[in-house]
């Protein structure tokens, strides 16, 4: 029941409320199951007794007001119990929603998560536009602080679901949906798109990293920095290739000529844990494989295979791996 993508291993306020509700419903459902099986066992046993009666048909046809009255009482009990279960579960789920709603606080930081077929754009909003950080496929959260997530979609309906932290919420084109979230236990968790969104829906995930608050602030400050220009000549050649090849029309890297919007922002790409929305670990070997043939790793995704010479490929990998 533990795991980085498990609703039963809560690491946040919303997640704890959902897990508590889950356990309560499991307990109630188990009780009901036991009661129904007991009733079944009782009537089977009774049936055996009746078939032992000399004339079962006459026995079945008899009228027995006392027994009927008793049965009526049991029906009453069952009706009351069912209604009670219904009301209790209803109250519990209301309580769960309220626990999540109580997270709302004034002046909380806001993070915008935008679903794009089949990756996530994440923007750390700020009242000063220059301080807004734009990244992709990774969501960083400070432990212990309420955060307001603004959920949007650029194309089709997606759904944000980080089960350890909170329940699901849809990202619907044309709507801004808001989700208050408060992580409590630092660690790395996994979010998965939870609404079928096309051919690579399965491989639309992202890491959710919960930091201690100071660590988070440091991370965010580092993200605001532009990237340093490449130190060695291979990486510099990589930057030139990136700008010369179609890469720059789809990807942006702050401080360079690349400001495409169709694909993930790659500004601090080397700090990210994964490639292609959680699909592969971010290592030079995997990056090479991705650049060689993105369609082999995520068939149908919107990054085309760009023909690259061997030295261009090496240079690109060196450059991207240096984007810290």
């Amino acid at each position, binding site marked *: 029941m533990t795991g980085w993508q498990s609703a039963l291993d809560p690491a946040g306020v919303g997640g704890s409320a959902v897990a508590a509700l889950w356990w309560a419903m499991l307990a109630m459902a188990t009780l009901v199951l036991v009661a129904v099986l007991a009733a079944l066992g009782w009537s089977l046993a009774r049936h055996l007794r009746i078939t032992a009666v000399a004339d*079962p*048909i006459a026995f*079945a*046809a008899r009228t027995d007001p006392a027994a*009927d009255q008793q*049965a*009526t009482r049991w*029906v009453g009990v069952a*009706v009351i119990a069912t209604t009670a279960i219904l009301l209790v579960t209803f109250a519990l789920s209301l309580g769960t929603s309220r626990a999540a709603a109580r997270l709302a606080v004034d002046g909380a930081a806001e993070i915008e998560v935008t679903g794009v*077929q089949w990756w996530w754009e994440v923007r750390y909003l700020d009242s000063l536009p220059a301080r807004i950080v734009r990244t992709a496929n990774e969501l960083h959260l400070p432990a212990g602080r309420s955060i307001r997530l603004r959920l949007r979609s650029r*194309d*089709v*309906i997606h759904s944000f679901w980080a089960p350890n932290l909170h329940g699901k919420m849809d990202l*619907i*084109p*044309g*709507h801004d949906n808001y989700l208050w979230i408060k992580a409590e236990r630092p660690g790395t968790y996994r979010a998965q798109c939870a*609404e*079928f*969104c*096309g*051919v*690579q829906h*399965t491989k639309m995930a992202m890491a959710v990293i919960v930091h201690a608050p100071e660590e988070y602030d440091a991370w965010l400050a580092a993200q605001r920095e532009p990237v340093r220009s490449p130190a060695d000549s291979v990486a510099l050649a990589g930057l030139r290739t990136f700008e010369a090849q179609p890469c720059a029309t789809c990807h942006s890297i702050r401080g360079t000529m690349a400001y495409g919007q169709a694909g993930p922002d790659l500004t601090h790409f080397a700090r990210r844990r994964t490639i292609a929305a959680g699909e592969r670990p971010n290592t030079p070997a995997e990056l090479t494989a991705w650049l060689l043939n993105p369609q082999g790793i995520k*068939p*149908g995704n919107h990054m085309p295979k760009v023909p690259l010479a061997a030295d261009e490929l090496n240079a690109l990998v060196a450059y991207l791996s240096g984007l810290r």
Partner: protein
Amino acid sequence: MAITRDLPTSERLRTAPEPHDPKPPSYDDHDELDRTWGSGPGVRGWFSAVNHRVIGLRFIVTSFVFLLLGGALALVMRLQLMSPDATLLSPEQYNQFFTMHGVTMMFLFAVPMGEGFAIYMTPLLIGTRDMSFPRLNAFGYYVFLIGGLSLYTAFFLGLAPDAGWFNYPTLSGREYSPGARIDMYTTIITFVELSALVAAVELVVTILKQRAPGMALHRMPLFVWAILVMAMMILFAMPGVIVASIMLALDRMADTLFYVPSGGGDPLLWQHLFWWFGHPEVYIILMPGLGFISSIVVAFARRPIFGYTALTVSLVATGIISFGL
């Protein structure tokens, strides 16, 4: 009951005897009924059958075949899912398979199967000769059959829908799903749900108007109550998905913007319309099952049902609440 042979049917109906005609029916009348409702010989007769037991059985057999087809698709999906990144199905094919599976199970198996039993059993249980509109009954079956066959024809022609049985826009809109796949979905859904509506109208009329003398509503077998609730639910639920599908078809083919956010439309509209149907749907599927249980337990326990009123009320309440929760 003197029926004048040589007059056309319309005339015969006008000269029909008073209801309190004391004479018992004769064998001649049987022949007459036979000519009107019988199936006639040969292939043509087979296709023109209107008897509720024949139609009911055809619904049951046909939807059972669709269950097998949907099950076969499910088995292939499970094989694909046996190991990560298996290559039995491409991602595109997998999406077609689970969409076909969902559409088959929900639209071509679960509901028609319940309707089949309802059409077969209801007239027998309420003591009437047939459904209220036997020819409409046959029409409903053929609409269902043609819808189902079209879906599988599309599948084998490489035109299977692939946006899930719930088919949410904007994914199912023209921008993200070009081609004819989704058009197959909207057409077939409208078709098959028309058949469900036809069956529902008939069941409601038959149950409310054709019960044997003395069978007041509160003496009706519980199975018939369950079917009545199911039919009423179909009447209210299915128009939702039909309207949603037609609007999507218009979006895709006539440039309307019902679900296109950039044009002021809203994909949420589809979700509301679809689940107005989709949520009651699972209880529409459940109702005949509840009816079966109430009849089977009663028969084998050799006791009249206990708590008839409570059970009836809860069937009706379930039918109503299913639209709201």
